[in-house]
Structures are given as C-alpha cells and as structure tokens.
C-alpha cells in the first residue's frame, strides 16, 4: 500500500497546487476515504502551506511587474518582523526572485501579442509595497520578485464563495496603518504582465453571476477576465453574462446557466452544463473549431451565430447563421444544422434538423423541481406517456416549463386537462414559461393529483396571448403517488 500512498501523496501535493488532473479525483477521494495516513499528510501540508504563505508574505514584499524594470536593483527585500533575524535563505530567495523576474520578462517579451489578452486577467495585483522604513539591518540590494498573474498550465486556484451575502459592515475603527494610497497608475508602458492564461473577458454582467474555479466561486465583475479552467454561473431570471474572446467571438450566457469551464487547447471549448448560451462565433482557424459541449451533445462551430440550450438530458441548437455540426453523445450520431434550422439532441427525439418556425413554437416540456428551480432528471424533456411517481421524485413541488423557439416569445398560454389557465405567461422576468408560473422569478409549486394529466402550451408572438398563435404542443403523463 506504500506505493498507493506515494502516488496519492504526489496527487495530493498537486491538488494543493491546483494541478491535480480532475480525472484522478475519484481515485484520490476513494483512497482518502480509507487511508488515515494520507488524510493526515494532506492536513499537515495544508497547515504548513497556510503558515508558509503567512510567514513568507510577511518576510518578502511581493510586487507586481510594475513600472520599474524587473531587474532593477533599487528595491530591497525587507524583513518586516523585528523579532526575527534575516534568514540565510532569504538572500537565496532574492536571487531566485531575480531569476523569476528575468524569466518572466523574457517570456513576456517573446510571447505572441494575441496571448496577452486583457490587461486585467485578475483583480489587479496590489501595488508595490511602499517604501517602508528601513529594517534594523539593511538588506542587500535586490530586485522585487515578479508575481505573474496566473499559473500557466495549472487549473485555476479554487476560487471562493459563490454567492456572497450582505456586504460586510464597514469597520468602525480606523483601519490598520496603511501605506499612502498609491496614485492612480497611468497606462503602463512596461512589458505586459503575464496573462497568457487569460482566455476571455466578461464584457457584461447582470444579476447574480459568479465565476468559479475548482472549489468555490467569486462574484463576477464586468471587465474581469476568465482563465483556462474557469467557468461561471448565472442565477435568477434576469441574470446575464457576456463573454468575449480576443478574436471577437461573443458568448452570451442567459439566466440560470452554468458554464463549468472554458478552455483553449485544440480550439476554444466551452462546457455548458445547463442553461442557455447565444454565441456569435467569428471564423475560427481551420481545424480548430469552437466546441460548445453540453452533458449530452457537442456543437462544433467554425463561425456562425447560434443559440444553445442545455439541460440534463436535452440540448437544443438553433443556428441563426452559418453551419454547425451537432453530435449526440449517447449514440455519437451527428447532424449538420444550417442557417435558420434547429436540432434537438435528446433520447427519444429525432436528431434531424428542422427549420426554425417563423412563428413561435413549443418544442418540448421540462419537469421542474420548484424547490431547487432545476429540471428533474429523467423528465427533461417530459416524454409522452411518462409516469411521474411522486414517491420517487425528489420533491412533490413541481412545475412544467414549456421550451419554446425562438428563445423568447411574446407569451405562452397553458392548459391543464383541457382547462385553460387564466394567467398567461409573458416571460417578463426572463424568457421562461411555466404551467404554474412564478413569483418574483422563482417557480411556483404545483403538486399534481394522481392520475392522468395533459398539459398543452400555446405560444403567441405578443404578450397576453395576442397575435396569431404559434405551434402548440401537448404532452400527456400519469402521476402516481406510491
């Protein structure tokens, strides 16, 4: 078992650095579950890491690549804690800092311009530490080490906090002694910071949007850049995030959408776990298509305008302009979808492309868990003749969403068992239309009585069921409660 622990130990070390291959996660997790020694090692390394970061950051001021050349010898390493004498390895660190500076500078100078996308790949690194009073023993002259923006090949450091609660209260007491505020920096003329991992930029953020890495999330901000491996989540009906790539490709993530990852290996890759994206893809290099991947399909794009809807078991692609190949992962069948057409990848639905109707149409229904606001696995879409067993569903608080094309229609009127709903769904808080409606953007709950039910949805081009009705759709299912 020793070799198992060694191998796991290597992986756990990589995990702490954010470089553990995700595909190894199940195996590591299983090992951790049965190996006290590895859990103890991980704990110890973590504690050492915490202490080391604290300790080293006190000892060594870290500066970004600032206006001063990285090879400058005017800066000094300062040891800020009077109780501690300078350690023998600090000068070594300074020397290493020089190497880092030179190495990064060389890398930056030799990098191609298009890789330096976005000057603000991360929240800007803090300004250089101000010149503090000299320590007791002057340090030998040394340059500031360079802090690159993002590790190049590693996945992003797990990012924090998905949905931040209320803002922390302002601190009434005066803040700790702070150095003079750095003056606003003029546009930098120095070499750009190492932003090679920045793949895209958030052009617009609306509503509750978070950017997430491996384990946690941070609130998204407009102009923030996304690095390889990062993703985002939009929550709530009005939420929106617009991602722009350096080549002008624009991807709009609609409400309640989760993009688990963006990457650029053999071409851009956007992993859409759920929700909706609309993409305007500029022509991509030959052999490097942009791939939009959902849990059950992949769309390969060389340049087009498209819309993609992803739920657990259904992906709908609408091509406004251009040509996209959509592949259903369950059977590897694929189909080419041309301008003005759409196709649905889901079990039990013909993959063949169909013309996007000029009039609105309901194309499928999705059973929604009103508690979680998410589709219920196995019923997305709801199949004709489906059996909904209330004792096996995760909740009895249900709703039925009509999936329409185009994505936003004027309104949808529902009927249940032949009785028209008095309320018309206008989709005012977002293009979502459901049988039981919503309250302030949250699905209302519908607890169906046992027995057979037929839901019909009719779309209209105008609000309040006005205009010529579009293509309606009905589905009949049976509800059982045992």
């Amino acid at each position, binding site marked *: 078992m020793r070799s198992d622990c060694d191998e796991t*130990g290597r992986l756990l070390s990589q*995990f702490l650095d954010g470089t553990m291959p995700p595909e190894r996660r199940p195996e590591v997790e299983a090992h951790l579950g049965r190996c006290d020694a590895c859990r103890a090692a991980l704990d110890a390394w973590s504690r050492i890491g915490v*202490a080391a970061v604290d300790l080293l950051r006190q000892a060594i001021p870290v500066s970004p690549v600032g206006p001063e050349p990285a090879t400058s010898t005017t800066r000094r390493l300062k040891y800020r804690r009077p109780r501690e004498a300078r350690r023998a390895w600090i000068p070594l660190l300074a020397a*290493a*800092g020089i190497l880092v500076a030179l*190495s990064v500078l060389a890398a930056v100078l030799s990098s191609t311009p298009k890789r330096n996308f976005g000057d603000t790949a991360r929240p800007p690194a*803090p300004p250089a530490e101000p010149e503090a009073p000299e320590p007791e023993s002057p340090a030998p002259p040394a340059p500031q080490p360079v802090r690159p923006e993002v*590790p190049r090949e590693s996945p992003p450091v*797990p990012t924090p906090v998905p949905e931040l609660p209320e803002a922390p209260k302002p601190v009434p007491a005066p803040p700790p002694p702070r150095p003079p505020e750095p003056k606003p920096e003029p546009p930098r003329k120095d070499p750009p910071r190492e932003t090679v991992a920045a793949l895209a930029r958030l052009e617009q953020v609306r509503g509750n949007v978070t950017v997430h890495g491996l384990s946690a999330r941070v609130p998204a901000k407009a102009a923030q850049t996304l690095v390889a491996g990062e993703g985002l989540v939009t929550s709530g009906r009005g939420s929106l995030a617009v991602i722009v790539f350096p080549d002008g490709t624009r991807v709009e993530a609609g409400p309640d959408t989760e993009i688990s990852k963006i990457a650029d290996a053999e071409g851009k890759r956007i992993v859409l776990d759920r929700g909706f994206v609309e993409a305007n893809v500029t022509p991509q290099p030959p052999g490097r298509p942009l791939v939009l991947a959902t849990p059950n399909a992949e769309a390969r794009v060389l340049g087009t305008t498209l819309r993609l809807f992803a739920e657990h078991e259904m992906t709908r692609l609408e091509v406004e302009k251009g040509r996209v190949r959509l592949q259903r992962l369950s059977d590897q069948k694929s189909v080419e979808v041309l301008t003005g057409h759409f196709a649905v990848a889901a079990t039990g639905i013909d993959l063949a492309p169909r013309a996007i109707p000029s009039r609105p149409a309901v194309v499928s229904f999705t059973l929604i868990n009103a508690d979680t606001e998410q589709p219920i696995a196995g019923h997305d879409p709801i199949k004709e003749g489906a059996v909904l067993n209330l004792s096996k569903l995760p909740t009895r608080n249900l709703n039925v969403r009509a999936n329409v094309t185009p994505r936003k229609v004027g309104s949808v009127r529902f009927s249940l068992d032949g009785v028209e709903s008095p309320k018309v769904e206008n989709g005012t808080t977002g293009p979502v239309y459901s049988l039981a409606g919503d309250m302030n953007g949250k699905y209302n709950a519908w607890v169906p009585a046992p027995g057979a039910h037929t839901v019909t949805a009719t779309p209209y081009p105008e609000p309040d069921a006005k205009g010529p009705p579009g293509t309606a759709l009905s589905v009949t299912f049976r509800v059982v409660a045992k």
Partner: protein
Amino acid sequence: MSRELVARARQGDREAFGELARLYAPLVTGAVLSRVGRFQDAEDLVQETFLRALRQIAGLADPERVGAWLYGIALNVVREHRRGALAAALTMGEAAAPAEPAVDDEGLHRCLEALPEPLREIFVLRHIQNLSYKALGDLRKATVTSVGERLWKARRLLRECLERKGGTGLSASEA
C-alpha cells in the same frame, strides 16, 4: 500583500476578499478535505469557510495571520459539519472563533532552512509567487513532473522536520 488585501476587504472591497480567497483556497481546501475525505463535501465547507470569513473579517485581529485565521474558521466549520450542527449555526448566525495558529513560525523557519536548497527554492517560489509548475520548471530548467516531485518532497520533509521538533502544532490535530 495579505495585509493590504485584508485592510481593503475589511472596508468592503469584494475584489480584495476574492483575491485573498484565491490565495488561500487551495490550502484551506486541503485542510478541509483531509478531514472530510470527499471533494464534494470539502467544496461546500470551503465555501462556508469563506462566507464566514467575509462576515467576520472586520474582527480579524492580526491581518498578517489571515491564513491561520482562515484555517481556524475552516476547522470550526468542519467540526460543526461533523456534529451536524452546521445548519443550526447558519440559522443563528453563530460566529466561529478562530483557532490557534497551526504551525509555529520559528519552527517553520528552522525547517525551511534545513530543507535542501533546490526543494526550498521551489517550495518558497511556489508559495510566495504562486508560480505555475511550468514557470518554475522554466526557471530551474526542470520538467513539470520534476517540479511536482520536488514540491511533494519538500512538503514531506517539512512535515517530518516539524514533527521532529515537536510543539509546532502539527501533532495537535483538531479536537
């Protein structure tokens, strides 16, 4: 840098708090993961740790010890998770008291000094500069695999050293 980020975060700067969390998330995650064993649970608890930290950061006495402070919160979150009291604590808005610092500075200094130079260099640069394996490899003319190996060895040796010295906090795992 942490001190400045803490100062900004205390004044409500979410970006600064986010940067702090980016810096410390892997390490805090490691602390949590070693106790719960499942990534899925760990992710939830790390999030809870940072949520609490956000609420409580105004009370952080020593901004330079933000890592140890976060670590203490993480341990409390794990304890509550184990007791099944997390939900109740959340409802009541209970504040978690930071635990004692995990590792003694002096001991860590001594062990860093004792570390073979190539390992120490990689370890320090990784932690203070957050350099990627590739950047570290470029710097030291080593492969990415070799960098990973050195970091792993450095961590093992540091742990052994600290345990030998005793009284470093490493032997006292959570209650």
